């Protein structure tokens, strides 16, 4: 799913990284726990989170993820935007809940990746 499509479906504001809007990202991971996000090292995922700290952006950077969606109306700080811009990460902000964000993206064909232990 293209990043521009993700933004459109979620009626999300694009805070930075417009250069990635044409990028196709087939999978998603959704969590407020970065410990859980770091368990899978695949880079072809969009990170959906309600945790709005610099560590969310750092986690995306460490994992080579190209886009983050902040849910529940969370807005990143200028410092977070700076780190995201430096690392070519698109930041999207939606007022939708985590549940509805995941539901809408799943409905449009986005899938989650299996975890290293084989569970979905």
């Amino acid at each position, binding site marked *: 799913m293209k990043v521009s499509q993700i933004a459109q479906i979620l009626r999300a504001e694009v805070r930075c990284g417009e250069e990635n809007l044409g990028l196709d990202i087939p999978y998603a991971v959704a969590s407020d726990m970065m410990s859980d996000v770091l368990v899978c090292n695949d880079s072809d995922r969009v990170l959906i989170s309600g945790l709005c700290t610099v*560590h969310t952006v*750092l986690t995306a950077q460490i994992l080579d993820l190209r886009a983050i969606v902040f849910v529940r109306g969370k807005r990143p700080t200028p410092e977070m935007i700076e780190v995201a811009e430096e690392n070519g990460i698109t930041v999207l902000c939606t007022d939708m809940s985590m549940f509805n964000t995941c539901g809408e993206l799943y409905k449009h064909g986005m899938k989650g990746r299996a975890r290293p232990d084989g569970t979905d």
Partner: protein
Amino acid sequence: MERIEKETTYQETRKVEKGDFAAAGQISASYKNMLKRLGVDSKVVRRLAIASYEAEINLAIHTFGGSMTITVYPDHIVLVVKDTGPGIADIGLAMQEGYSTASEQVRMLGFGAGMGLPNMKRCSDTFEITSELGIGTTIEMGFLLTP
């Protein structure tokens, strides 16, 4: 792009202060940039950066402070993470996914799900951990440069 020469060895040691959660991650991000510049395979870089980030977070939230030493050899990388305590009472338990002694405050910051040590082991090619209560913990991880 600069490549690692056969005879090149690089070593760097950096400190992590107790409780400095805000700065945790900067060392791992710098490793990532350095290894990318050296032309290391991106999958190896990512595995090392994940393990390093987990270790860096652990140093800040669980320990009295410590250090991280990365050594880049021609065919592998070694990352040694040392702290000055308090030490781990039961390493077997600490290695179980989901077991954590992290505070509620740390969990509110997105960490402390009990995945750190198992994830370091998963991401590295070799993993050794030793710990003594009152003395500290040392973790040595090895990463082969061929993916």
